[in-house]
């Protein structure tokens, strides 16, 4: 369930197809995931999971895989 929510946040925020979302998807390496996309993505993730991320976590959220790891700190499980 959580992984679907996270994927949907990426799809909505970055406007990229689901098949492009995988653990290797990285900030600044995909055309759509630039600094503007990142800001929108953070807003989507916070909305989807009803959380407010710490600034350090926002800066560290550099990949789809890293996003899962960081959200674990907010008691969101992806297992």
């Amino acid at each position, binding site marked *: 369930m959580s992984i679907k929510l996270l994927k949907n946040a990426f799809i909505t925020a970055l406007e990229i197809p689901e098949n492009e979302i995988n653990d290797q998807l990285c900030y600044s390496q995909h055309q759509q995931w630039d600094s*503007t996309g990142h*800001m*929108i993505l*953070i*807003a*989507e993730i916070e*909305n989807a999971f009803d959380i*407010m991320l710490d600034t350090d976590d926002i800066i560290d959220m550099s990949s789809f895989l890293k996003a899962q790891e960081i959200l674990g700190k907010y008691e969101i499980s992806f297992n």
Partner: protein
Amino acid sequence: MKKRVVITGASSGIGKACAYWFASQGWQVFIHGRDEAKLQALSTDLQKKYAIECSLFSADLTDSSTIKPLIQQANKSLGGLDALVHCAGSMVQNSLAMIKEQEIDQQFNLHLKSSLLLAQLCSRLMLRNKKGAMVFVSSTVANQGAVGQALYSAAKSGLHGMVKSLAKELGPHGIRINAVAPGFIETSLVSDYSTDKRLQLAQATSLKRLGKADEVASAIGFLASEQASYITGQILPVDAGLTI
């Protein structure tokens, strides 16, 4: 759906006047201040007079760790955010030689750091709807300068740079950023001014009088409202012509 606003520094002065202005326009209001008893009294009065929802949060914004809980609580109470009005402030009036380092930190934390942190958090809530407005409270001394106000004016003029930069950065996402620059307004910030000084200040304005907090609140309300939908990155003087 009712519009939702967070107002900092609402326990007195311009912030309190803003709380009444927004409530009178039917907004859902979330008020912040340092004095919980005053906030509680204000909240009760607003709910009684305007039949609106009004929640509150008491904190000292010079402590940056209070800012995230403030916005989290506001989001929880309001269910989103349409506008931020950042009125919390204090003024250190000292000649250069008498300014303490602790006061420099306090003023920069209160006027600048808190503004940036609030903008960070609120912009993320507003991005969800791709719409929102923030209004910050500056001062005429930010541009004009004044003897004994080097510290206060430095902090407030820094705010101007922030407002213009954020207007450019957040404009494409539908978020407007503006500030008002009040002149001489009858608030606790100037409560210790002598009668002579008040007369002197009034004479320096075109309208020959000091301003009232609600005259600033209506300008803030305008900038936060849809009526100002094509205005961003502006510092609106509310100063009776003082800076003409």
